[in-house]
């Protein structure tokens, strides 16, 4: 892609300067920064001395792609990290320094770095007994949500930089509701305390503690600073507006010690502020640099979409419209009216089919919705498959327990470990057989499961195929019988080996048995992907959770936790399945964080209130627990409205900034509850239409 004159200027900046770049979304800042990075490497700056810092991993993708370019000189590559990743890496490396000074009560214990799921697991050990005692009794909330809100609070203390004991007072002083309800804030704080205490006792480092320890105990350490100076001399820090205040503090202190820096800020960004990102503190980093450059040359957003963006912002904020304003006609925004949700999906698929028939590459189409449920993905995917159009999704990974491959491996594990006394239902075994044996149908699998699985007190047992009467064996077929016998023999052998190590069991079961020719996982990318995720989850459980909770049946415990949805690598985003030949289905927010333009956007159900980002939660509050919230101020309805309006303006503006051809909006008239949706985005669109009659092209499904 050809660079604009401003991008060329940026690319060719001297490497030993400290530069701050800002500009609106879509002005090509990241592209220019990547060109600058390539220039640095080409001109001989040692790659290992360059650190690329991004607020979250998806934003690293363009850098990773650029660095995989074979035209770059061979050798090591710059590190690309988030602030959390950097903290974790350094905490691990400098653990001998930290173990004594950072408050860990058993310094001899090796540190365990927790993921989101293992953090939730340990937190559940603390919260569940308290909930049974009546904590949070007036709050209607699922356990996983409860844990995540307590962790949100804890993470805010680390990313914003305030002590744990300020959680409850901050939330309490902003609360306008009944005073009796403020006891829940105290309870949430108590849980955070107890959890921190537990972590220090067992040398467990969750995200908040990783950052806390890094900044408060490592960052000021001379040995560490020496190491840092020797290793990193150049910093490229992109999307600073999406990062936490603590990251800004660290970078602010770091800049004077670096040879060159390039910091990039998107003026329309700040989408992650609900997670603690702080665009205001990001902007102050400019003070630490020698020069600020503002990129103004826009990329290819059609002028009418720019007009629509401005108008939509006015109507979302309910601002007055000057009587003299000339009605607008936006050619490339289309509004499709549908009655029910499935009807809307049919219309969406027709629209996509029309676009692709007219020569649009499916990869240039993004379907965006506030949420992407499994059933939405599935419904759209099956409809598109009928038209031979591929779909790729951007959404958090599915729950592992729902994957047929995982269920099959569970069943295998139960049969291979009769000592766990985990019963297997014949239906469960039937499904496992259908998954495990290529081409096995439901009826024959049903015969096998009902005739050859015996439930015994010492555990469930598989009987040999030869035990069947010949007529039944013939109905099932001897080919299937042969495969069944291979499975039975493999399980018996693994039982004899008593493989206690569950990750190893899954690995071998996949490698030696299920991925072999004639079995269900053979050459199946999906099955391999699910197995990989399961092994990763089991490994995490094995290395982090099992040592802390010495139990004989830890494998069984893992299976039960996973079956109950407590754990299961739910948080691994499946970024890798992105394909250029497929239509993208993504939550709108995730799409924004991907930071890539897309010519054709399809917005689903603007009447859904999910488009209207909801900030407040019963036990946490992203703004009240942020850097800029004045102590003792109350979070009023006006604040709420203002914040939500700004957020919707920012999100829709961000989407429209990334739309380079046209937008299709699909409305439903009756939602799941039988109501007519009336969300704020729809209201804003209607208000736009009122002031601009005929301003959009309307279609009826």
């Amino acid at each position, binding site marked *: 892609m050809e660079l604009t004159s401003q991008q060329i200027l940026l690319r060719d900046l001297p490497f030993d300067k400290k530069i701050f770049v800002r500009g609106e979304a879509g002005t090509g800042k990241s592209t220019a920064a990547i060109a600058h990075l390539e220039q640095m490497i080409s001109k001989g700056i040692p790659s290992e001395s360059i650190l690329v810092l991004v607020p979250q991993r998806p934003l690293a993708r363009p850098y990773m792609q650029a660095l995989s370019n074979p035209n770059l000189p061979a050798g090591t590559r710059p590190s690309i990290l988030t602030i959390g990743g950097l903290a974790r890496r350094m905490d691990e490396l400098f653990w001998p320094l930290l173990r004594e000074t950072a408050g860990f009560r058993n310094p001899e214990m090796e540190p365990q770095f927790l993921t989101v799921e293992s953090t939730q697991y340990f937190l559940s050990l603390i919260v569940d007994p308290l909930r049974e005692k009546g904590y949070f*009794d*007036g*709050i*209607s*909330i*699922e356990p996983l*949500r409860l844990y995540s*809100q307590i962790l949100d609070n804890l993470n805010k203390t680390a990313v914003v930089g305030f002590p744990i004991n300020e959680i409850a007072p901050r939330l309490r002083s902003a609360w*306008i*509701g009944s005073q009796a*309800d403020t006891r829940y804030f105290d309870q949430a704080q108590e849980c955070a305390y107890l959890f921190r205490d537990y972590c220090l006792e067992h040398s467990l480092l969750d995200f908040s503690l990783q950052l806390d320890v890094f900044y408060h105990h490592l960052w000021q350490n001379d040995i560490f600073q020496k190491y840092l100076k020797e290793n990193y001399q150049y910093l490229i820090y992109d999307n600073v507006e999406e990062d936490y205040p603590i990251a800004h503090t660290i970078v602010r202190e770091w800049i004077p010690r670096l040879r060159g820096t390039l910091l990039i800020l998107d003026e329309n960004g700040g989408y992650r502020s609900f997670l603690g990102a702080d665009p205001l503190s990001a902007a102050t980093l400019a003070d630490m640099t020698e020069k600020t450059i503002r990129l103004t040359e826009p990329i290819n957003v059609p002028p009418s979409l720019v007009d629509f963006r401005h108008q939509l912002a006015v109507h979302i904020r309910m601002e007055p419209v000057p009587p003299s304003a000339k009605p607008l006609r936006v050619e490339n925004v289309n509004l499709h*009216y549908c*009655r*029910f*949700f*499935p*009807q809307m999906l049919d219309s969406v698929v027709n629209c996509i089919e029309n676009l692709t028939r007219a020569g649009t590459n499916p990869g240039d189409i993004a379907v965006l919705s506030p949420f992407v449920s*499994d*059933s939405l993905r*599935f*419904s759209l995917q*099956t*409809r598109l498959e009928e038209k031979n159009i591929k779909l790729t999704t951007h959404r958090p990974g599915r729950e592992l327990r*729902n994957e*047929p491959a995982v*269920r099959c491996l569970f069943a295998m594990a139960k049969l291979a470990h009769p000592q766990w006394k985990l019963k297997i239902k014949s*239906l*469960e075994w039937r*499904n496992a057989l*259908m*998954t495990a044996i290529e081409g096995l*149908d*439901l*009826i*024959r699998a049903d015969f096998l499961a009902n005739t050859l699985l015996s439930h015994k007190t010492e555990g469930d047992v598989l009987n040999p195929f030869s035990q069947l009467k010949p007529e039944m064996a013939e*109905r099932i077929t001897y080919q299937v019988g042969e495969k069944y016998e291979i499975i039975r023999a493999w399980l018996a052998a693994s039982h004899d080996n008593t493989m206690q190590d569950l990750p190893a069991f899954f690995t071998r079961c996949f490698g030696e048995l299920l991925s072999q020719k004639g079995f269900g996982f053979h050459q199946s990318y999906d099955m391999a992907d699910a197995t990989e995720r399961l092994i990763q989850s089991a490994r995490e459980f094995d290395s982090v959770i099992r040592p802390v909770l010495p139990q004989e049946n830890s494998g069984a415990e893992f299976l039960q936790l996973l*079956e*109950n*949805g407590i754990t299961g690598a739910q948080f691994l985003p499946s970024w890798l399945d992105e394909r250029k030949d497929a239509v993208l289905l993504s939550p709108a927010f995730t799409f924004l964080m991907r930071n890539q333009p897309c010519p054709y956007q399809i917005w689903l159900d603007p009447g859904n*209130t999910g488009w209207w980002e*909801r900030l*407040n*939660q*019963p036990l946490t509050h992203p703004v009240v627990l942020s850097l800029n919230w004045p102590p003792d101020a109350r979070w009023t*309805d*006006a604040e709420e*409205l203002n914040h939500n309006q700004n957020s919707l303006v920012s999100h829709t503006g961000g989407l429209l900034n990334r739309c380079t051809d046209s937008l299709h909006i699909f409305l439903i*008239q*009756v939602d*799941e*509850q*039988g*109501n*007519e949706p*009336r969300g704020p985005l*729809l*209201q804003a669109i*209607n*208000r736009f239409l*009122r002031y601009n009659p005929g301003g959009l092209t309307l279609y009826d499904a």
Partner: protein
Amino acid sequence: MMPKLRRAQEEVLTYSGGKMGVSAVPGSGKTFTLSYLAANLIQKNVLQDNQEILIVTLVNSAVGNFSKEISKYTQALGLPRNFGYRVRTLHGLSNDIVRERPELAGLPADFRILDETEANHILLDKIEAWRRGHSDFEQQWIIEGVDPYRVSKDLPYLLVSIAGNFISQAKDLGLTPQTINDQMERSDSLLLKMAASIYSDYQLALHMRGAVDFDDLIRLSLRCLETDPEYLARLQYRWPYILEDEAQDSSRLQEMILRRLSSKSGNWVRVGDPNQAIYETFTTADPKFLINFLNEPDVISKELPNSGRSARRIIALANHLIEWVQKDHPAEELRNALVRPLIQPTDPNDPKPNPADSPNNVVIDTRKADSEEEINRVCNNVKNWLADHKDETAAILVTSNERGGTVADKLRTMGIQPVELLRVSRSTRKTADFLSKCLKFFYRPTNRFLADVFNLYYRFQIKEEELDEARMAMLSQLILRLDPLEMYLSPTPVQDWRSHIQKTASSDEILVILAQFQTRMERWMQATLLPIDQLILTISQDVFTEPADLALAQKVAAVLERASKNNPNWGLSEFSVELDSIAKNQSKISGFSDEDLGFDPEKYKGRVLVTTIHKAKGLEWDRVYLLSANNYDFPSLQSNDRYTSEKWYIRDQINLPAEAVAFLQRFADGDPLAFFSPPGSATLEARRKYCAERLRLLFVGITRAKKELAITWNNGRQGDQIIALPVAELANFVNRGFK
């Protein structure tokens, strides 16, 4: 386009602000007037462009009707669709209020609302657990020597009814489980202990699911408005006018919510008919709220007394019922069950003049009949009538969904395809039944279950009127004889089901049908490995073509997916049971059939509709049959009357749900001995309320008829019931020549 209005309607439409109460008789054009009033206000530019007129109504079907009417007017004004108004049921409104600020209600942003099926499941689970440790409850209440098998079949549902009503009432009164438990510690009432214990467990189960039920939703929306005055002010600004339909069925909380929302603007119009209050028993609705409102000093009171719906004799019959109840009902405590105004016919030049009377257009059949005979008589009569009235509408109105199902079945055996509008609509039941049958087959793949699946699958493939039952039966027989089954569904390369079938001489057409079905089944069987919601969606997308069926399937998928999340051990058989309860009319799922979203009888000319009187509210037909007018379905506080809520196996004819609820009411009223009163008085009070409500139900039933009305009765299961007292009086009135 100005529609022609009656004077009373014009008066209502002069409204420009303040509080107004409108008493509207049946057929006086309430929906039309309110819709037109909303459109009128929008046209007068009384709204800022970020304001809406809020219309609150009772049921989803009315939402659809209002929306259709208002959008007709607003679109004619050149406004965007759905602009300037919002129609909501109380639940829908509460959902909007809570969803915008859930933290004020102690809810996470993504809180969910339990469907009735799921709520009942939780209740049943908790009740079973409670019963295991409390056999003393049954010892205390169940009459010794009654058939334990029959009792065991009914008792769980009675307990669900007790607990469900208790919980509903407690929430309406703002009583938490903790408040009740603190106060009743010293009480020795097992009934109360049971209800309070289930309430605690149920609420905890909801909390752990991050969910609320419909009663919570209403309670919590009020809490949001009370907690944050700024939020309230914002909503007051958003909805400067509130128009409330069916206000006679308003509840205490509904009134409190709407009173708050309208308190700043003072613009609140309530329209209703106290004579049509038919949701009082075991809900928190009460017509007294409307009656009291009408008497408030700052309320402009109007009437819509004219009705062009019914022929004059039918109006005379309805009016006579009001007058007789008020003056001559033998139970004095029921004399205020129906109130004036009487229905007035329209002027002759009215755009909707009353239909002319025809000879014998009002018939009250006083002949004794048993239940079956009554249905036979009505069905035969309707069959004859339909033959000559292709352009007219007819309805059979019953008192229960179960009886409605029996009537519909009978009609089908006579070759008449009725339109059903029962608790769960027929299309919803048909959809649920098909999906349930599929799951049953996947759970236990046998020929019998496959034939069941095919039977329903085939019915979805062709139009109802083109269905050839004989061919259907033949195809089912073929499927039953497919042996081995896998030869058909998953043949090996050497197996050929076609040659097997051809031995029994089948046509090519039959083979095509079976081949299509086989392809579908193969795909669905493979899909059994998917999560339950995806399995349902896979099947649905292959079978259903109607948008409403697809929408319902999407909803069913979501319900089952949630059930699976809450019950990780559930498999195909449990999901199938869940669907069965919907298919059998036992559980309601907020459905999407056209019936649920706004039913138009005029679309079904020349056919007969079967529905309950409750569901018939707001609708009208040329010819109406009103069944079961006996002293069980319409009791009158007479010594020989029996009451449905007083179970035959419970001691002293005590109405346990009513007694449990009465405890709470007394407690909320500040009675220090609320939890220590002996049972009995609440049972008697419940009888009075029930009888009054049934008089109003009779009134509603009568006023559904436009041209012709027939009322019949039966002598009940035990053969000892008699014609209902008010119906006997109406029969005399007819015999006296409507004098």
